[in-house]
């Protein structure tokens, strides 16, 4: 336990060394310095996990903000939830670090990249370790920063920079909501400590409407976890190097919102209307993401929309109070989505940075390890048993079935779409003829061991990840559910599933049928998606992401730019300043008029004097004279 502080500290140290020594440090050393901290942190987390006695512990590190009655310490909380998150972050993180050694080996900013990655791991660990909402907020914004830095990693390209800014700003919109939530918590409970707040909530010791607080916190989650309406940054975030997409925009950071809702489940449980809202937002996002994913041709974009969609599933689960199921999906998703991204990265690496699946095909033989692992990932995400994705998604669906059948039905639809577009990508990439250029064909090669090793490890987890919470019917003991039980409310979990019923059968059908359809269309018919110009109709609308970016541009960006110019040029210069300057001008004008009284003629001067004398005498003595 005493070594706990090392877990976040090591990545910070790695960041400091790599960041300060950046241009001078040789790449090999930078890679090692970057990779060791998460590795050691993983080992420490594992040790923590194994020695955990079931009692949540608060580890105060230092005083932070102490003002009046408000005391916000730097403190870590070790409990079931944070330990699991530690494992996922450091585990997946380590693999991605290893992968990056290979993937980024040709990049000039190698050391900087590792520095940023370490910094990200640091902030992510702070996020999950924090014992209060404010420390969580440090991590929350910190990962946003790293996300910004890493998306814009190749900073010469302006569009990457734009994507990075978009991510940061959209996250900040959510963060404002989160911040308001924190303020409300402080107003009500005088603190942001989890334990104090949740204890007070459970004992009914609060005055304000908890649903407002929960809603504000959820706005934060919408930003961070890319839910409608704040999701558009995530697909753009694919501008970053692929390992970043895997780590930040699939496995860890984007699930912070889910982590936070689970963490604050006591609050959300008492705000059923907010939970309802969460569920519907999740559902809408899941469907929207999946729909857009259907027609994307950029391999990373597909995966990005898939992430948006999967995050939607997790929120749906939360909306149905199925916290375990959602968290289960967080974990399995971390495995298979990281795997898919890394696989995609491996493909892109081999294809000399080509990302369009219409230019790929037939890579199966050239890149066997990538092929196999990618396939396993695809199966997992499609929800085909007995892979990890099946169990976690099925659990969410099962709880939805009891919660709200309509949502369940739509979720099944989304699941079918997922299965279809994932197989579409998979087939188009690995089967058929190679459709790229000669030069690319010449370059094709399997990735180095540093890249394939993480793929293999992740593939193993994607296949067997379901074991973590293997339901009873499959011979498991629902480890995750038991493990998390102390932190969660009693009810909300689904019971046994019967595969012959609608409840059990529909998900299976939704996983298999679209898969076959995709295999048929793209594998057997060998059809290839049309070029951009040929797309039309509804497909074009979907391909262009329903023009949501354009909508936001018209609704927010343009008006604010207009306002900015308007305020600057009109209000500032013409209204306010005119008034200020006008006063000066008025004085000058008055002056030019006043001086005309000074005619230079003594006669007039004397006349004025006499007139003034008469007036003074008259006014002063008026009353006396009248009496």
């Amino acid at each position, binding site marked *: 336990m005493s070594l706990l502080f090392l877990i976040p500290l090591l990545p910070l140290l790695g960041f400091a060394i790599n960041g300060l020594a*950046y241009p001078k440090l040789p790449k090999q050393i930078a890679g090692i310095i970057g990779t060791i901290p998460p590795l050691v942190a993983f080992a420490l987390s594992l040790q923590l996990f194994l020695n955990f006695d079931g009692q949540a512990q608060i580890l105060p590190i230092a005083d932070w903000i102490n003002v009046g009655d408000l005391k916000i310490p730097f403190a870590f909380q070790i409990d079931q939830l944070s330990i699991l998150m530690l494992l996922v972050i450091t585990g997946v993180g380590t693999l991605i670090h290893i992968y990056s050694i290979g993937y980024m080996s040709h990049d000039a900013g190698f050391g900087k990249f590792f520095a940023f990655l370490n910094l990200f791991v640091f902030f992510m660990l702070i996020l999950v370790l924090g014992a209060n909402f404010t420390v969580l907020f440090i991590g929350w*914004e*910190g990962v946003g920063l790293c996300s910004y830095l890493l998306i*814009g990693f190749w900073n010469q390209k*302006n569009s990457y920079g734009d994507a990075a*800014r978009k991510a940061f700003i959209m996250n900040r919109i959510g963060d*404002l909501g989160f911040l308001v939530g924190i303020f409300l918590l402080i*107003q009500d409970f005088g603190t942001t400590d989890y334990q104090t707040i949740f204890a007070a909530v459970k004992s009914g010791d609060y005055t304000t409407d908890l649903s407002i607080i929960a809603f504000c916190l959820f706005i934060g989650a919408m930003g961070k976890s890319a839910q409608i309406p704040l999701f558009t940054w995530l697909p753009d975030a694919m501008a970053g190097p692929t390992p970043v997409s895997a780590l930040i925009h699939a496995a860890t950071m984007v699930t912070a919102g889910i982590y936070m809702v689970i963490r604050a489940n006591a609050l959300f449980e008492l705000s059923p209307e907010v939970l309802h809202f969460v569920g519907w937002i999740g559902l809408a996002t899941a469907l929207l993401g999946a729909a857009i994913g259907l027609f994307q041709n950029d391999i990373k974009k597909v995966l990005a929309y898939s992430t948006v969609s999967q995050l939607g599933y997790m929120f749906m689960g939360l909306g149905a109070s199925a916290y375990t199921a959602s968290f289960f999906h967080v974990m399995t998703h971390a495995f298979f989505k990281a795997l898919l991204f890394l696989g995609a990265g491996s493909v892109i690496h081999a294809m000399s940075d080509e990302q369009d699946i219409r230019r790929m095909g037939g890579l199966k033989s050239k890149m066997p390890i990538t092929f196999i692992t990618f396939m396993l990932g695809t199966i997992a995400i499609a929800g085909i048993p007995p892979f990890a994705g099946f169990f976690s998604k099925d659990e969410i669906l099962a709880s939805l079935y009891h919660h709200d059948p309509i949502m369940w039905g739509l979720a099944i639809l989304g699941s079918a779409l997922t299965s279809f577009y994932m197989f579409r990508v998979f087939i188009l990439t690995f089967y058929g003829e190679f459709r790229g250029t000669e030069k690319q064909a010449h370059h094709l090669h399997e990735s180095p061991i540093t890249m394939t090793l993480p793929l293999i490890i992740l593939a193993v987890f994607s296949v067997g990840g379901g074991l973590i919470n293997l339901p009873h019917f499959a011979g498991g003991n629902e480890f995750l559910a038991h493990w998390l039980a102390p932190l969660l409310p009693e009810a909300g979990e689904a019971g046994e599933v019967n595969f012959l019923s609608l409840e059990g059968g529909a998900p299976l059908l939704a996983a298999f049928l679209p898969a076959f359809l995709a295999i048929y269309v793209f594998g057997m018919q060998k059809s290839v998606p049309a070029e951009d110009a040929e797309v039309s109709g509804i497909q074009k609308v979907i391909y262009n992401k329903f023009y949501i970016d354009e909508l936001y541009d018209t609704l927010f960006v343009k008006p604010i730019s207009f306002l*900015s110019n308007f*305020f600057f040029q009109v209000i500032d210069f013409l209204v306010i300043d005119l008034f200020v300057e006008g006063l000066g001008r008025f004085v000058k004008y008055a002056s030019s008029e006043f001086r005309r009284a000074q005619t230079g003629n003594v006669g007039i001067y004397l006349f004025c004097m006499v007139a003034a004398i008469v007036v003074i005498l008259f006014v002063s003595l008026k009353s006396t004279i009248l009496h």
Partner: protein
Amino acid sequence: MYLLFILLFPLLIGSALLIFKPKNAFVISLAASLIELAATAFVLQEASLSPVSFSAPWVAEAGLSFSLYVDGISGVLIGLCALLVPFIVATTANTDRANNSQFQGLMLAMQTALMGAFLAKDAFLFYFFFEASLLPIYFLAAIYGGENKNAITFKFFVYTLFGSLFFLIALVFVYLQTPGEFHSADMDVLYQTAKGLSADQQGYLFAAFFLAFAIKMPVFPFHTWQPDTYTVAPAQGTMLLSGIMLKMGTYGVIRLVLPMFPVGVATWGLTASVLSVIGVIYGSIIAIQQKDAKRLLAYSSFAHVGLMSAGILSGSIEGIQGALYQMLSHGINIVGLFFVIEIIERRTKSREIAQLGGITQFSYPLTVTFVILSLGSVALPLTNGFIGEFLLLKSVFDQNLTLGIIAGITIILGAVYTLRLIQKSMFGNVSRITSDFADLTGAEKAVLIPLSALVILGGIFPSTVLGFSEPAVQQLIQWFK
């Protein structure tokens, strides 16, 4: 006695520079400001145990005394002033201003005026320095400024002076209500006296006081002098203005307005807060489309200070502590940011954002420090700006929910314009004028790196400062309530 030293020492050296015009003005000035820093640190050390004061008769027949006082509140400000001036002096290194004894002398003279305003215990002494500070900065800006400097600096001078005259008249009014044959302008006595005034009087007096400070800060709609002046003044002048001088306004509200006119604040505080918050949003929105980097920062400073003002007017401990902390942070950040722009301007002769780009390829340290300073400015957690803005937003939020949320939008807009500035200048393609951008010199690093370190340290260890100011603020709040 130490207080007298830290007050007069810069002036002494400054006037010596102005009169004798030595060749090596830079070394003298830097040494003087460092000695000042050391002496101030010593005073603050003392003040952390109990308030330090100094008093001498001044205009006895008018009840005015030359009394200086350092408690938790003024301590933060004199600390800020003593801390920043060496950096500001150091920014002149290797330029033609370095050994310009007039320039250095005026800066040191300015320091005395600023220190004086923060140290004063007697309200008239405060006013005295409050206005006197206008002179050195006016000359700095008007002699060394850029295009159209005469009209702009003149407007600045007249405008701010105009505001402070209302402050003076209101101050005289309260002062004349104080007991005793000769009256007294000691702040404690003024607090006591002003509290006994009628609600109407408090309202008027609040307006008169706030007007002066609102112009100085500035608060919407009294800000139109500010972007022009910041843009036209030489970088060091802008740093002095934005880093330290505008804090005289916020400090004045904390020191004088809150304890003197609790009823006035209760009646009119919300109106003033609303104006401040309008300024926050208004300034941020304008900053988004600015073409001139310096003007962008000017508007951002305008936005930041609006939040401080709103926080202070909430009258809560978070608001005041947050404002104090934010004054410190904002001072550090804005000085650093203006220096970055100055460095860019020195090398490219341009501040036009659209003409820059790709600087990171030539100067990694500049990019890193710039980003860190900007992050402080956008209030990212673990930077100094976060502590201040967190507390300020919370206080505004507690006072009025809607206002708090509107003020909170600043964290979004702040990110918008700051990131735009970073991207257009540091990242992207190299432009014609940045193509031979030289890396930072040692002297430039010596300013930017410590400032960046302070940004981060300030975000991690705020309790050093917050703890220092807490007793004094508690006392103020007790009185206010």
